[in-house]
């Protein structure tokens, strides 16, 4: 069991309080996932030509300022790091691929949680409430966000094994369920050049999406490919620079509920997380059909 939540702001008021709402939704899913928690928040776009990395260090005394100086030396520009608990966001004067590759080559001890223009991913072991406090989730403004609370079933409880998983620049995946063909699929994706950091099944689904998107599939096509190529139970929520998408496996083993008002679109494993949002009692809510991709983005909702 795990809990997943997603929130897409349709009004400036919700954008302003995105982190507060996200934290409240996440805490409601504590009983579904007390092992670890994580969020992907889409916010504060990097300036044109620059990119944004979210990095994790196991070393609590990590010298983020020194890393920023190294990045400045390598690329000519890097803003002061924004540090939250074990994570730091660095905005670099380089495209996401270059900045990502530089960190992987020069600092293999660090983990690149996310790379892109707008995405920031934070995740850590422990209860959702402790996570929300440690990372000051309530401070976040942003356009949309996904969150996950994990009850581990098939791999270790580690920071790296927590969700969301990055699936490419500005892309991420959260998952409730378990996949049964992930070992074989991981091997075939490795042959395609997709890298994996853990033995986690969701990371394989993330790698699968990254591979399909790299091969120029649309997000919708990549998700529909999951119905063919992934064996197991899943409700997925995928974040993109502009919005998010939801997919349940063809027999809908795992729960999901969607709700929409004039101010927001929300998804969650359970209504409890949506009930904490303003105006939830009057929201239009429904259960997504199995095997159908649901997607929202700025263009679709006119936000």
């Amino acid at each position: 069991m795990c809990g997943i939540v997603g929130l897409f702001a349709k009004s400036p008021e919700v954008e302003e309080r995105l982190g507060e709402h996200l934290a409240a939704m996440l805490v409601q899913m504590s009983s579904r996932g007390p092992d670890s928690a994580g969020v992907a928040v889409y916010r504060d776009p990097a300036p044109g030509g620059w990119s944004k990395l979210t990095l994790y260090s196991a070393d609590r005394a990590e010298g983020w300022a020194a890393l920023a100086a190294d990045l400045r030396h390598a690329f000519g520009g890097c803003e002061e790091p924004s540090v939250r608990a074990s994570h730091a966001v660095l905005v670099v004067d380089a495209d996401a691929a270059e900045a990502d590759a530089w960190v992987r080559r020069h600092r293999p001890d660090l983990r690149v949680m996310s790379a892109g223009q707008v995405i920031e991913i934070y995740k850590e072991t422990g209860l959702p409430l402790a996570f929300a406090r440690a990372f000051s989730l309530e401070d976040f403004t942003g356009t949309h966000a996904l969150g996950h609370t994990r009850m581990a079933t098939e791999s270790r409880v580690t920071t790296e094994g927590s969700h969301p998983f990055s699936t490419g620049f500005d892309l991420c995946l959260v998952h409730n369920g378990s996949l049964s063909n992930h070992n074989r699929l991981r091997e075939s994706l490795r042959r395609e050049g997709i890298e994996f950091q853990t033995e986690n099944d969701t990371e394989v689904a993330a790698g699968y999406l990254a591979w399909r998107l790299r091969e120029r599939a649309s997000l919708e096509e990549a998700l529909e490919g999951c119905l063919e190529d992934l064996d197991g139970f899943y409700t997925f929520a995928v974040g993109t620079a502009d919005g998010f998408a939801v997919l349940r496996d063809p027999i809908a083993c795992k729960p999901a509920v969607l709700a929409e008002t004039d101010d927001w679109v929300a998804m969650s494993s359970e209504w409890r997380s949506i009930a904490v949002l303003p105006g939830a009692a009057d929201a239009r809510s429904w259960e997504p059909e199995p095997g159908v991709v649901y997607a929202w983005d700025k263009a679709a909702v006119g936000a």
Partner: protein
Amino acid sequence: MAVRAVETTELELVDLESTSLRELNQRVHDLATAPGPRAWRILNPNGAHALACGLDAEVEVEIDGHVGYYCAGMNKRATVRVHGNASTGIAENMMSGLVVVDGNVSQSAGATGRGGLLVVRGNASSRCGISMKGIDIVVGGSVGHMSAFMAQRGALVVCGDAGDALGDSIYEARVYVRGQVAGLGADCVEKEMRDEHVEQVGGLLAAARIDADPADFRRYGSARQLYNFTIDNAGSY
């Protein structure tokens, strides 16, 4: 809060913003053995799980809002009305009584129920009436895939459409559908709608207070062709 020593017809108002779910459930459980209020109204359920579960008393519980998993599970004699949507397993294993949901319900509504009536005014998701054993279920809207899976007794009346694999491996339960059936499950077939069936559907629609013509429904049930229906295999059990 102490249980009142006398029965009362006054409305007992419980706000889950200020009363814990456990306290509420304990109070309504106690009605099985001690007198107390006969009419309850629950505010702010906010998707809480196991709300009004295990009731065993002739009381009426109204819930204002959406409820979580297993609401009114194992219900006996009581009437539970949900003015909102219900999540997985509403009225699961109900023994008797009445459960009415104004909105939609998620998966496995009325699962394994042995008696009583479950009414869903909106739609029901997948596996509605899975393994039902005597409960009657009336759905005003449509039901999802694998509804009435291994259903053993009772009737499932669907005023809208039914999803794929309806009545897979069904035993002696009766399924009535007014709209389209996406597909029938293993050993489930359409059967003749005789007078007794029209009468049964009419009675259930009346009890559910849903306005529909019973003659518009088609009946589905077991072809009795699966392995366990063959007398030659009787010795295997």
